[in-house]
């Protein structure tokens, strides 16, 4: 399929004062609450994973850009921000070599091989995550328990898949899910902290509101239908919203600029489809959490969604 090199939102354009570097700094600031609570829950392991991920991402980027003869552009911080987001969706026990492979895949297959920043059809973080999940499913499932007492050592969505809805309502309180008092990937456990970060990004206009709004609405609507029909078998929509990777996917991953649509309508549909797909995978798929796979799959549709654009005046 031939896609135009440059797709621009409809006029008028106003310069937002955002540069790539500024956007990346803002994303990292927005992740700070989730990082802090990750450090509080999992201690030094969080710092270790993040340090290795960010450091190796910058290192690979420098190396690959030198090898490929491109101007070195680590200053725009895309590598660092990517490494940070990847660290957020790894378990706190991730071994160092796995993180390094992940960041290599993220930079190489996610960005440089397509000709550098902006040409990648997929989100590099997701490519890396999917490759790691496929290759090292065991290492991706060694959880660490946050402090405090709770009833199970499995992440909420695994409980939903293996033990059913009753167990979920027994084991997890809404407050616990909001604060993140469960096992899981470093950055996905606390929905509240991710919401704070997301709100910051929305206020700073770093990310468009349509994608997260569509994402969360898609989850609520689609899982709500099944919950209303049979609450004994299907989990309630707020559980789906708070558990697993829904929040981080909605605010930090689906909003990746190069792999999401550019028109407001397109972004809304993109978000909705991601949300629906998340619930589909969670309820009927083989994996516990569908949020990351959902974004990965739906980003294939981005060129198609970019065709939805306002009518050109006068035609």
């Amino acid at each position, binding site marked *: 399929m031939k896609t135009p090199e440059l797709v621009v939102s409809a006029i008028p354009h106003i310069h937002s004062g955002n540069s790539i570097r500024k956007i990346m700094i803002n994303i990292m600031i927005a992740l700070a609450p989730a990082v802090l609570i990750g450090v509080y829950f999992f201690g030094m392991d969080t710092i270790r994973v993040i340090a290795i991920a960010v450091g190796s991402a910058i290192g690979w980027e420098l190396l690959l850009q030198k090898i490929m003869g491109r101007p070195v552009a680590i200053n725009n911080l895309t590598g660092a921000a990517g490494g940070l987001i990847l660290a957020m969706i790894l378990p706190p026990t991730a071994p160092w070599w796995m993180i390094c*492979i992940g960041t290599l895949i993220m930079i190489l*297959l996610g960005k440089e091989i397509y000709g550098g920043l902006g040409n990648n059809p997929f989100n590099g973080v997701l490519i890396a995550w999917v*490759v790691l999940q*496929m*290759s090292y499913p065991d290492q991706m499932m060694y959880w660490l328990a946050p402090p405090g007492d709770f009833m199970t050592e499995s992440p909420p969505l695994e409980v939903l898949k293996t033990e059913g809805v009753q167990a979920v309502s027994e084991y997890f309180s809404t407050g616990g899910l909001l604060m993140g008092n469960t096992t899981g990937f470093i950055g996905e456990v606390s929905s509240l902290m991710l919401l704070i970060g997301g709100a910051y990004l929305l206020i700073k206009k770093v990310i468009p509101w349509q994608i997260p709004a569509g994402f969360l609405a898609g989850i609520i609507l689609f899982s709500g239908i099944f919950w209303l029909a049979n609450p004994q078998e299907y989990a309630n929509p707020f559980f789906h919203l708070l558990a697993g990777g829904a929040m981080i996917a909605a605010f930090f991953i689906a909003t990746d600029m190069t792999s999401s649509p550019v028109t407001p309508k397109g972004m809304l549909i993109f978000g909705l489809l991601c949300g629906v797909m998340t619930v589909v995978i969670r309820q009927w798929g083989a994996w516990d959490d569908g949020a990351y796979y959902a974004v990965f799959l739906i980003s294939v549709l981005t060129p198609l969604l970019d065709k939805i654009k306002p009518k050109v005046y006068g035609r």
Partner: protein
Amino acid sequence: MSRIVEEFTKGLWKEIPPFRFVLGLCSVLAVTTSVESAVGLGGGVVFVLIMSNVLVSLLRKIIPDKVRIAVFIVIIASGVIIVELAMQAYFYGLFQVLGIWIPLIVVNCLVLGRAEAFARKESVVLALVDALGMGIGFTMSLTVLASLREIIGVGTWFGISVMPEWYLGFPYIIKPAGAFVCLGGILAIMNVVSARLDAKKREAEAA
């Protein structure tokens, strides 16, 4: 004589299948999970290619144009069944690994492609040389791809452990998605090398 050399060597680099034509990928990606099965399938393809090319070239004057594809397919299919029976009789273990991919050599575009594009217009010797070159090129490509996938993926080569003890493997490469990544990587490297070679040639001509 120079013609013979040319027809032979083109299959090894200039027109090496499947990297240049990107033909027959289905079986290429499926059997390259281990070097053993890649070499096995490559051997089968070499035999079928030689047989079909030689027979088609021998019969090129008497095969009516309108039914040539039917005749080619009959010849190719016979060759494939011979390979299947022989493999079953003498390499049963390999036969069990390759399974469905042996009968599928029939629809490998490479074999029919060489019969249609080359053997039906050229003499027997040239057709034989072409089949040899193409077949060896195909086997080589498969072996390279399979070596890459087997060594990176599980740390063995021909079933022999080649990586240090601590190497855990990278199972992604063994999966179908990894096959595409490897193939893409090899294509990219080949294009870079070709471009460099062409540039050198042009420089030499200009000088």
